């Protein structure tokens, strides 16, 4: 093309490198923080980061942690979390985090470096087929092969990550695309060509739902992470709806905080380690309203015995979640907040009277179940019960009144945290629900602390899980992030040990946490404070010391080694076959091989 025919405007626009275009697009999409780790393929972006102040880069110690940190950031703020990693090993290290975000519907945009376009497919140094590897690990992914597409792809990635059912999006960026000049274009004002998820519920479906709910004798509201994802307003609407109807409400693991734990209409978490009253109410109800939950196998137990006599209403933003595991009478596609607003309006409008007498009888039933007090435990003797440690942590943070965020690793401690820490508000609870990723909690807490510098951010951890991303103690030190790691140290991969005890004849194959580090010294070597508590009498003081310390802390709490997490619905069992406690462990003897194949 001769110089004369080149449009002048294009010339003028091409003043920015691809890397600068990427940063500008991030900024225009509201990114303030990016969690990353450098390498050859992304050096142009690091160069651009060096030259600006709008976006803060947090240098993690492992790419998996960058994604979990972005998840913690996203889940505690409602914003899209942003990640930057290099090609090859940088991208493959990020994969666990991406799948974690996919299963828990967390909006993430992850930029991965790539070898230059002319080397793609050549087995070049640090080349991996990132879009191939991450295709089933993301909601969507892109490989940018033309500079002209760069800005549009970044804008689109943010739109895809946060709209509909949120999820992780990868943008693979060949190094030549980052170095070459590229045009910047604003985010398009027009609708996306093909991806336009339905957010507004269908009025007819709402009417059908209300007709069922008005005549329910034994109703229950079962709310999940979709309510949290729909923003804090959705949680307010959930409370309004539950209060105006007088219905009992249960939350999934991902939904904790969507409805206040203290509310008398809250019957606790449901599912494998949920409360007796929540699971029995699910089993016996006649009308179930599921909002933003997905009938996950941890929740339903044995499918053919799941809530056998109820009519089910399922509101979900993702049509593929509806009728996937459990057939429902009234499917509603839409955003949880919009659905709740519509339900509230329709409930008020509908003149039909509620069967108040039936509801009273139903509550009497539920109160009987509550009377079992399924979460009771006895703290006695010289050994700290893990449940007690979480309960005291909750009570002390509550008494202090500070804004508190909790993350967890994966295992028994995670379930005890869900059972004994009460969440009154959404966005305060970060846990790896769908993937169950050990090593999630510390980096997630780090991301939360970045977003909420003055809040109290605690990772309730197990001694095995914490070692999976322990290197992030370095990140805490570098950025002076006062995250508290509260280890329930039972010297076992407790959840594995529990299954081995209950289902595999007590053969504790490879589940002992041998050769543990001295966590106090470990903390100190990372410039943090270390605390060890072994005596129940010192527990409160240890917790208070941990919270009072202005910097990062590891509190290593020695807890009972053989404690099991109850109540429990053994795999393959039904809600009404739950085991309440150790006296009833024989109840597991009946687990069939069919049940044992389930995880």
């Amino acid at each position, binding site marked *: 093309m001769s110089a004369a025919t080149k449009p002048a405007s294009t010339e003028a626009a091409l003043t920015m490198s691809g890397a600068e275009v990427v940063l500008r697009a991030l900024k225009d999409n509201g990114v303030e923080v990016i969690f990353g780790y450098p390498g050859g393929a992304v050096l142009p972006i690091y160069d651009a980061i060096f030259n600006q102040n709008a976006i803060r880069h947090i240098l993690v110690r492992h790419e998996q942690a960058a994604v979990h940190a972005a998840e913690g950031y996203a889940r505690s703020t409602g914003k899209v979390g942003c990640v930057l990693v290099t090609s090859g090993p940088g991208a493959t290290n990020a994969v666990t985090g991406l799948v974690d975000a996919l299963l828990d519907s967390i909006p993430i945009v992850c930029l991965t470096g790539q070898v230059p376009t002319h080397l793609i497919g050549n087995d070049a140094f640090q080349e991996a087929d990132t*879009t*191939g590897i991450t*295709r*089933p690990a993301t*909601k*969507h*992914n892109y*490989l940018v*092969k033309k500079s002209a597409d760069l800005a549009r792809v970044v804008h689109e990635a943010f739109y*895809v990550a946060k709209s*509909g*059912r949120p999820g992780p999006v990868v943008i693979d960026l060949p190094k030549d695309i980052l170095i070459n000049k590229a045009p910047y274009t604003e985010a398009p004002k027009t609708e996306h*060509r*093909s*991806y336009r*998820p339905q957010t507004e519920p269908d009025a007819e479906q709402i009417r059908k739902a209300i007709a069922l709910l008005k005549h329910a004798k034994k109703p229950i509201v079962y709310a999940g992470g979709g309510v949290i994802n729909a923003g804090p307003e959705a949680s307010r609407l959930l409370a309004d709806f539950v209060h105006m109807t007088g219905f009992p409400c249960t939350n999934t693991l991902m939904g904790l905080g969507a409805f206040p734990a203290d509310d008398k209409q809250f019957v606790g978490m449901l599912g494998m380690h949920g409360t007796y009253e929540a699971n029995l109410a699910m089993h016996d109800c006649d009308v179930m309203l599921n909002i933003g939950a997905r009938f996950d196998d941890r929740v339903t137990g044995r499918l053919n015995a799941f809530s056998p006599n109820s009519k089910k209403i399922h509101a979900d933003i*993702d*049509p*593929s979640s*509806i*009728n*996937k595991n459990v*057939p429902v009478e009234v499917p509603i596609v839409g955003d949880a907040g919009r659905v709740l607003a519509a339900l509230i309006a329709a409930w008020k409008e509908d003149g039909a009277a509620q069967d108040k007498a039936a509801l009273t009888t139903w509550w009497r039933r539920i109160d009987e179940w509550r009377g079992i007090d399924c979460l009771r435990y006895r703290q006695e003797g010289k050994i700290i019960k893990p449940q007690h440690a979480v309960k005291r942590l909750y009570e002390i943070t509550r008494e202090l009144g500070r804004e508190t965020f909790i993350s967890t690793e994966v295992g028994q401690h995670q379930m005890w945290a869900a059972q004994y820490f009460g969440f009154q508000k959404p966005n305060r609870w970060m846990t790896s629900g769908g993937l169950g990723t050990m090593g999630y909690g510390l980096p997630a807490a780090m991301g939360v602390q970045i977003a909420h510098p003055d809040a109290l951010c605690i990772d309730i951890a197990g001694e095995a899980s914490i070692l999976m991303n322990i290197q992030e103690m370095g990140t805490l030190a570098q950025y002076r992030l006062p995250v508290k790691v509260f280890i329930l140290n039972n010297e076992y991969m407790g959840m594995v040990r529990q299954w081995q005890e209950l289902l595999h004849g007590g053969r504790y194959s490879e589940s002992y946490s041998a050769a543990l580090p001295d966590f106090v010294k470990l903390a100190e070597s990372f410039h943090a404070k270390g605390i060890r508590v072994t005596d129940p009498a010192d527990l409160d003081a240890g917790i208070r010391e941990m919270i009072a310390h202005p910097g990062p802390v590891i509190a290593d709490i020695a807890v009972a080694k053989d404690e099991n997490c109850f109540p429990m619905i053994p795999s393959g069992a039904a809600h009404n076959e739950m085991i309440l406690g150790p006296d009833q462990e024989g109840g597991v003897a009946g687990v069939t091989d069919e049940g044992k194949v389930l995880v």
Partner: protein
Amino acid sequence: MSEFDSAPRAATIAVLVENEPGILARVVGLFSGRGYNIDSLTVAPVDETGRISRITIVTSGTEMVIEQIKAQLDRLVPVHKVSDLTLEGPHLTRELALIKVVGTGDDRVEALRLADAFRARVVDATTTSFVFEMTGAGDKIDAFCALMRPIGLAEVSRTGAVAIARGPRGLI
């Protein structure tokens, strides 16, 4: 609920997608990742700009599985439209096949006679072979191949099914 335990049925699903790199891998990966069947899959651009491709998938499953397949396809970002032709009414399904038959003498005469009956065209001939081209529903091609087998069927290449609804109703 009966719908969920229903006997498997065949479904011909038409999917309009953005014609972008990786789209086929996304669709195929969805089927393999979630354990769905693919009996056949065809794809080609169908609009004047070449930006939109049409994928025709023939699959089978219970009603619940087929509903899942459609919902899962529909949630892929580059997918514009998913249509279950089997469910939505009368439709046409066609497949093209190239069929090589090798033989001499009476076998050649018999091959030509059968081809004529099936309206297969000869598109290549040597003194010892024919290549027939035929279009039709899959079972018609199956039947033709079965008859050619004893005569000297040497090679078959088939496109897989393409399908379209009857009548004025359109997908785009």
